[in-house]
């Protein structure tokens, strides 16, 4: 086994002209990508007041519900706020475009027709393109020029299971697993450079973020973009039910506060 491992000699030129360039190119592309993403990021768009109101209406009832089991406010106040909110949700007072007219089917808004939603989608697409295209180009470059190259020998032994990971692109059944092929070196770099990017670019850089998103699932990123339009009509309906539940849970902190105080100061025997 050891004799066969020694029998393979790597040209130092491979180290100088293949191994180092691949690593260097990948690092530089990562840095470049970070700055390109920064360039492409448009400043967050300003929402008109009505839209902010619509967005935050849900937060209002969430704040009310958050403390409902131990509410700081007395029952009559709680009920008046709760009733007012649920009436407003019912009537659609908080909707951006005012209460819905007529009884047309409340279809979810088509993102293609709403220019604001389009912008959000385009921004997401652009970022994704910046992340995908360079990786594809580098992979093509490696595949075209260095296909089947053995680049490096790991200084530690590995089991046979790593063969598919370390020797992608070389179809040899017998070669020692410690030899790493060019394509595998690319993947090792691709997943392993995050720490380096963090050192170079700081913690919240887009080079790391994008490759992590890619690691999770390359195509899932498009499905839940933050700019996705939400159907507030439905959300408000659901929130109304939540309010009703919360009202069932409601209890005032002041209900037995005198007993608590008296017990604390020893005026009442604790039970």
């Amino acid at each position, binding site marked *: 086994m050891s004799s066969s491992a020694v029998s393979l000699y790597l040209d130092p030129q491979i180290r100088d002209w293949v191994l180092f360039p691949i690593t260097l190119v990948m690092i530089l592309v990562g840095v470049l990508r970070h700055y390109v993403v920064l360039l492409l990021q448009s400043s967050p768009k300003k929402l008109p007041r009505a839209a902010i109101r619509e967005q935050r209406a849900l937060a209002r009832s969430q704040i009310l519900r958050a403390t409902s089991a131990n509410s700081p406010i007395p029952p009559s106040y709680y009920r008046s706020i709760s009733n007012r909110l649920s009436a407003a949700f019912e009537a659609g007072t908080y909707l951006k475009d005012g209460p819905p007219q007529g009884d047309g089917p409340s279809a979810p808004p088509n993102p293609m027709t709403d220019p604001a939603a389009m912008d959000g989608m385009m921004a997401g697409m652009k970022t994704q393109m910046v992340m995908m295209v360079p990786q594809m180009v580098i992979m093509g470059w490696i595949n075209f020029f260095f296909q089947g190259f053995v680049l490096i020998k790991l200084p530690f032994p590995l089991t046979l299971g790593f063969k598919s990971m370390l020797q992608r692109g070389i179809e040899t059944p017998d070669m020692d697993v410690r030899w790493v092929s060019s394509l595998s070196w690319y993947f090792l770099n691709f997943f392993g450079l995050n720490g380096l990017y963090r050192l170079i670019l700081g913690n919240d850089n887009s080079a790391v973020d994008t490759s992590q998103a890619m690691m999770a699932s390359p195509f899932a990123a498009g499905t839940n973009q933050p700019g996705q339009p939400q159907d507030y009509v439905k959300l408000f309906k659901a929130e109304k039910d939540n309010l009703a539940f919360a009202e069932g849970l409601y209890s005032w902190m002041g209900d037995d506060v005198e007993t608590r105080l*008296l017990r604390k100061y020893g005026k009442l025997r604790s039970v």
Partner: protein
Amino acid sequence: MSASLPSALQTLANYRIHNTRASHEVVEKGKVLLNSNGTSRLGDDAWAFLEQLALAAIDVANYEIADECLRRLATKFPESPRVDVLSGIRMEATQPPEVALKFYNELLQTDSSNAAIYKRRISVLLRMGKIERAVTELSEYLDTFYSDVEGWVELAELYSSCNQYTSATQALSHALLLAPQNPFYVLQFAETAYTADDVPLAMKMFMLALDIMDRNVSEESIPTGVSVRAWYGVKLCCRALTERTCSSASDTPLPQNLDLLDELSTERVLTAYSVVGKDFDSSRELVLSWMGPSDRTGGRPRFIH
């Protein structure tokens, strides 16, 4: 001067963090910094410093420095909403409020999401004495930017200043929802309810404030600060409840064990004044005479000034 520069910077940064309004000192220290071109050494902190200095300079009517800061900020951040607010404040300082109002209105027309400008506009309206319009605007503002606790407290104070105590308690109840851990708001709610003559509710809220404040305090300790005030409140409510029949607009039930609560609150208030010291003697006399059963018929002190 250069030796004390770091310490001056440190103090200024500290003021920024804690929102201290020590305008005179800020201007004194900032003037040196501004003249010695120390801002270039501050890096990105320079802009926060310039904003702080501008505000402080407007505060002490040193408009030259304020204008210099504003000029630098405006060249660095054109069209920044924050600089807009600052120049609005500068405008309020020397020009009639109508001009400032017009400026704010124009800003809001281009960008209707700038919360700070709404607040400035409301404060200008208040300064002009248009309380009614200010209240309307503030309610509209809070309808959009619900989570602004200070806005709700301000609204409550505005209502109180117009003797609308029930509306004030309603505004305060929103502040309570947003900051349920803050005993000061609970106390304010209690005092407002007391003034609105909803004694049972006030009593409950005074006790709630005490419950929050004294959570980490042992029962032997001497009440201090706001908790003395809250114990006074409990005592007052007890007295009112035993003397007359109190109605409650919010249908709050009367607390049980009223006599025990009366006893406890008397004890706690007296404990607060049990500290021996020459300043305390006269006040203790006063408290003792007020607490004494002979003075049961004393008028109800009002909490809201």
